[in-house]
């Protein structure tokens, strides 16, 4: 596993957001803050979400940009943003977002790993309820 994909500074475990768009902006901001994407990428994430939801199940969504926005990606990275109070995601309740900025396939293995975690209800719960950055880093990298 590449260890440069998830910067501990991009793991935010006690966030709150009034709605889906605010949650996506928070994720986009986290990616911009660690130098993974340029500012316009945040709007592209919102645009992508409007076309098809990135909700993947188990209370988790994986917002990311559009194909056209790859030019705004500076390096492959993810962020993990937890909303303990939940966010209404087109009728689904999301408590964890894994935001993605990728122009190559560097993050594929990590997504594959995330899928494995989410298909295991116990591990999915552990990830959703993680309160320490180290727990998240351990699960995902």
């Amino acid at each position, binding site marked *: 596993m590449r260890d440069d994909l998830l910067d501990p500074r991009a793991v935010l475990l006690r966030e709150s957001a009034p709605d889906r768009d605010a949650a996506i902006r928070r994720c986009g901001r986290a990616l911009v803050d660690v130098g993974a994407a340029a500012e316009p990428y945040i709007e592209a994430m919102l645009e*992508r979400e409007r*076309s*098809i939801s*990135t*909700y*993947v*199940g*188990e209370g988790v969504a*994986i*917002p*990311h*940009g*559009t*194909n056209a*926005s*790859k030019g705004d990606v500076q390096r492959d990275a993810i962020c993990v943003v937890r909303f303990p109070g939940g966010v209404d995601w087109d009728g689904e309740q999301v408590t964890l977002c894994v935001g*993605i*900025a*990728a*122009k190559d*396939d560097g*993050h*594929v*293995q990590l*997504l*594959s790993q*995330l*899928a494995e975690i*989410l*298909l295991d209800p116990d591990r999915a719960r552990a990830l959703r309820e993680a309160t320490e950055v180290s727990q998240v880093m351990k699960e995902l990298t």
Partner: protein
Amino acid sequence: MPSIDSKDIKKLIVACDAGMGSSVMLASQLRKQLKDSGVTVEHTPVNSIPDDADVIVCHSGLAARAKASAPGKPLVSFQIFLGDPAVTKLVNTIKNGGTVDA
């Protein structure tokens, strides 16, 4: 409705919009599930589905674009990225034999 016998399936394409998120996740799952079947799984943007694709898998929200991009190919559409019954059925058909028509 286009159909194909499972033994003729060599390449499965997960068609997506951006190719960096959910479709990548699904493609990796399918690759794992079909590891021993000899079927290649790739993910490509919905407007550049390769000619040698045998079956297209995509989110229902992209189905119309996928059909326009690869006319005449069997297309399995799903709503849930992980554990959708339509995808499970496709995997079982490829593993156990049968016809994919969608």
